[in-house]
């Protein structure tokens, strides 16, 4: 990227910048999707079932919300490296590896927060649902549905965390130009090249993108509230 400012790149519709933004969104949205697929049911199960060691599981889940990205990156790196257990798949230094790392990073956030939300709602609905004598599956469905707005906010928290991290994608992606380079690794690279104005400009672009995704989610919520019936 040969430019003195991010504004210049945006105004000239720079293809490299566009590709980087696209990859960032693709990786992070995919990771959020897979983390939701694992995290939401996991949160619901922990919230609604009783099993030995449940409290320990909750504490661990809550604690894992603070997983350091660089540690996740290193673990996934060791797992995917050719010398690691999943080496034969040849996934290291690919976008898929980045999705895996970010999924690992944010699944605990989604699971822990949704566990809390669903449990609170369960306390509130408990008698009503018990009186209706519905099965456990209907219970879960009802609770998930009624908590949907809070759950979307939780997904956004996970998305934000994944979009902002640099430690994990740098290690497992390798920051390869035109292949695994995303917004945060570009910012780190430009900083190391002493291109501070470009780095800060790209930072602004990233923040704007994250706000845009949040605005989109907000709009969907307002729209569906208005049409709910």
């Amino acid at each position, binding site marked *: 990227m040969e430019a003195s400012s991010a504004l210049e790149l945006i105004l000239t519709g720079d293809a490299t910048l566009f590709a980087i933004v696209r990859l960032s969104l693709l990786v992070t*949205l995919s990771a*959020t*999707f897979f983390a939701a697929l694992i995290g939401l049911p996991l949160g619901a199960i922990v919230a609604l079932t009783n099993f030995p060691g449940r409290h320990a599981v909750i504490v661990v889940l809550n604690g894992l919300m603070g997983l350091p990205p660089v540690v996740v990156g290193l673990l996934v790196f060791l797992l995917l*490296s050719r010398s690691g257990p999943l080496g034969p798949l040849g996934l290291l230094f690919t976008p*898929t590896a980045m999705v895996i790392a970010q999924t690992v990073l944010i699944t605990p956030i989604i699971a822990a927060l949704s566990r809390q939300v669903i449990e609170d709602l369960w306390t509130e609905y408990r008698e009503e649902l018990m009186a209706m004598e519905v099965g456990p599956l209907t219970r879960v469905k009802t609770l998930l549905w009624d908590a949907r707005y809070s759950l979307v906010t939780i997904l956004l928290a996970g998305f934000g965390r994944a979009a902002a991290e640099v430690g994990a994608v740098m290690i497992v992606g390798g920051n390869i130009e035109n*292949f695994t380079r995303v917004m945060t690794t570009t910012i780190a690279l430009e900083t*190391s*090249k*002493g291109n501070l104005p470009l780095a800060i400009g790209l930072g602004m672009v990233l923040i704007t993108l994250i706000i845009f995704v949040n605005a989109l989610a907000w709009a969907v919520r307002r729209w569906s509230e208005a049409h*709910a019936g």
Partner: protein
Amino acid sequence: MRVRFLAFAAAALAAASLMTAPAVAQDKSIIVSSTTSTQDSGLFGYILPKFKEKTGIDVKVVAQGTGQALDTARRGDADVVFVHAKAQEEKFVAEGWGVKRYPVMYNDFVLIGPKSDPAKVKGKDILSALKAIHDAGAPFVSRGDKSGTHAAELRLWKEAELDPAGSKPSWYREIGQGMGAALNTANAMGAYVLADRGTWISFKNKEQLEILVEGDERLFNQYGVILVNPEKHPHVKKEYGQQFIDWLISDEGQQAIAEYKIEGQQLFFPNAKSGS
């Protein structure tokens, strides 16, 4: 309502499946683990398109310090290593991780410091300059990351019969980061730092820093390229990797390296035939 939610989820899944498409299309490619100096200076950005045009091979560069780059190759996560620390490279080959080391080019290191030059090192040879920094206790930023530049810095201290990396005085600051970060740090602290000329010329945040010592032959910095041994790692793309090496040391590749200039200055000097 639920339908819309499901449609949203399906769209996300479709986005996710797009991820795999480019990975499949980029089959004719190799991974080269190399150093931050070759990448940050822009050399790869200049020569790789020429190589791709000729052979159709996509070279994916993972830029790390020399120590980490060799380690990446040792694990089998790269097909070719392109680094600058001769002793480590020879060890890498001797241990059977690499097939053969080819000299490719050289650049040189320069001692960078604040224009105010508190230790008065300007114009000295590199060993007297390091002694002066040591005696004055002037701040010095060390890469501290086992990179080629770090290895060169340690070798120079040793030749000057000093050992700040061992005694760790407060003026000697190991930051454990890449070349650019070290320059940013030196600029912020008004410290001395050893840098490769390529990164220095292309570095944009020079401010109060300038070259104080250069041209000393001890500052010579040789680059070598090695194919990762397919006997250790059978998945290594040896044909493509060897094609890349052959091109680098061919007249065409050597000329491409010599042609790369920033602000009219040549950064790397090809020496595949005469280098060691």
